């Protein structure tokens, strides 16, 4: 059944990798990396290329680069998305990749998947006006529009499973220990 469906996901390779990692726990330990360089004002350029996994150093095919800044209404020059928008991008793309993978595994042919995200934030937090207001998002809403050969119930189950196995969903919804050092 899965063979008749093509969402562009090599599910056989993924399942084989899952089996292989079961017997090689050290290989499953990954370290993801990013570097960031300040440009001017609130403008910074971040890059990713190397990471660690499968017991070795790994590299993306090319270095990817991301500009971040703030819009002009923040008295910035708007050279790129805001970091909080990139968080939405991370969540959206992780859930979407998950939908495709789960659909492939469940034999569901996708025709289109679109997600819209909204994160609500009260600036009283980051501006230090009200200590009861948190800095970050107080609510994130993701709305999927999915066209697929499946019932609405099956599509909802896809989306639910995608959240259950999403790294970024977990990062956003659960606490993480963070260490910041200065060299």
């Amino acid at each position, binding site marked *: 059944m899965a063979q008749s469906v093509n969402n562009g996901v090599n599910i056989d390779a993924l399942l084989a990798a899952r089996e292989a990692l079961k017997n090689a726990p050290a290989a499953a330990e990954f370290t993801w990396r990013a570097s960031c360089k300040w440009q001017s004002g609130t403008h910074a350029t971040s890059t990713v290329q190397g990471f660690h996994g499968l017991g070795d150093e790994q590299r993306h095919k090319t270095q990817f680069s991301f500009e971040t800044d703030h819009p002009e209404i923040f008295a910035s020059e708007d050279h790129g998305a805001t970091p909080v928008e990139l968080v939405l991008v991370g969540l959206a793309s992780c859930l979407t990749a998950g939908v495709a993978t789960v659909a492939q595994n469940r034999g569901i042919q996708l025709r289109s998947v679109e997600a819209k995200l909204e994160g609500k934030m009260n600036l009283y937090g980051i501006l230090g006006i009200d200590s*009861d207001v948190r800095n970050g998002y107080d609510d994130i809403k993701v709305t999927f529009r999915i066209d697929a050969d499946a019932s609405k119930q099956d599509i909802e189950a896809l989306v639910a499973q995608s959240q259950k196995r999403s790294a970024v969903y977990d990062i956003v919804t659960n*606490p993480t*220990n963070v260490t*910041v050092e200065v060299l």
Partner: protein
Amino acid sequence: MIGAGHAGLAISSVLTEHSIDHVLIERGEVANSWRRERWDSLRLLTPNWQSCLPGYRYAGPDPDGFMSMPELIRHLEGFAAASAAPVRTHTTVTSLTRLDGGYRVLTDRGELRCRSVVLASGAANVPRVPQMRQALPERIESITPFDYGSPERLPRGGVLVVGASATGVQLAEEIHRSGRAVILAVGEHVRLPRTYRGRDILWWMEHSGVWAQRYDQIEELERARGLPSPQLIGTPERATLDLNVLRAKGVEIVGRLAAIRDGHALFSGGLRNQFALADLKMRRLLDTFDEWARAQPEDPGLAPAERLEPSAVPAAPRLSLDLRSGAVRSIVWATGFRPDYRWLAVPVLDRRGELRHDGGVVRDSPGMYAMGLPVLRRRKSTFIIGAEDDARDIVADLLGYLAGGGRGGS
């Protein structure tokens, strides 16, 4: 005066010096919150010699000791008697409204009219408990410092203490000592050693002038007013009670309680930064003391400058706790307090329900004053030793207001 605690009594004493007719309305007895709203073992965190009020000093045998609640109540009763404070006890204010040229105070025992009113009803009338309390599983008992008496009265089993203020660290220590497992959730906190260079840390606060710093010279006043109380306890041993001490005793330290979801308490992963901030601020304060000491005539009683151990961060602090697992049976909310102004029918509160005032002078309502709020006029405003200077300033403004026919003071 509304309230006959140390703040109201201090104002009363200064008004009496100026022969100003006044009365204190007190819902209970003198020092009521100290009688009814404190736990059994509590001692003041300020040493006895700092329990000084206008014309009234501690005269006991142990100036460096710390008063228990019965001792403090006796001390304040002594002050009320010595200053012949006109206190109407067991009288509860039900509303305060403006009248032409003054105020009308309704109480459960009749009505009063006055030209001026001082709100001295305290900064800590109601425990502040976060909304997430609603999400607690049913079997977890929720306890505020007002409900707490002693560890024996808690349900058997582990206890999650939320908040690392003076209240939080004191209760965590006492509950842990009773043999219960204690987890302490730590957000922003103020770390202080009990003694520094051989002197009480509050001796330094007073003598270096840090405590006398005025509200209009503090850059981030709102922040200063919202700071949690310092991690101090008053014990005969003058012991330090910071997070290193609690950890060494076996209290489990976790990050700020961020949420309760699906029966789990979730703790912030930002604990390391909370430790770093508290250590940096403490170091800055101790450096200020050292700098002050260098500028003083040599003091042979002073030990050399000290470097305190940094707060040791647990390697991998717990991020969540299953509240249905039975590991914890109760939560103690040491998450602060707020004043209760339900009776205040004059529009002088901001959108957060806090009184809008300028160093205790309520500009929007001439003739209205406040006493005993955090950093009201000085860093020491809420401490007993801070009451006299504030009372003298407030009374000076009040005299101007009365002399001006009620049109506003200085």
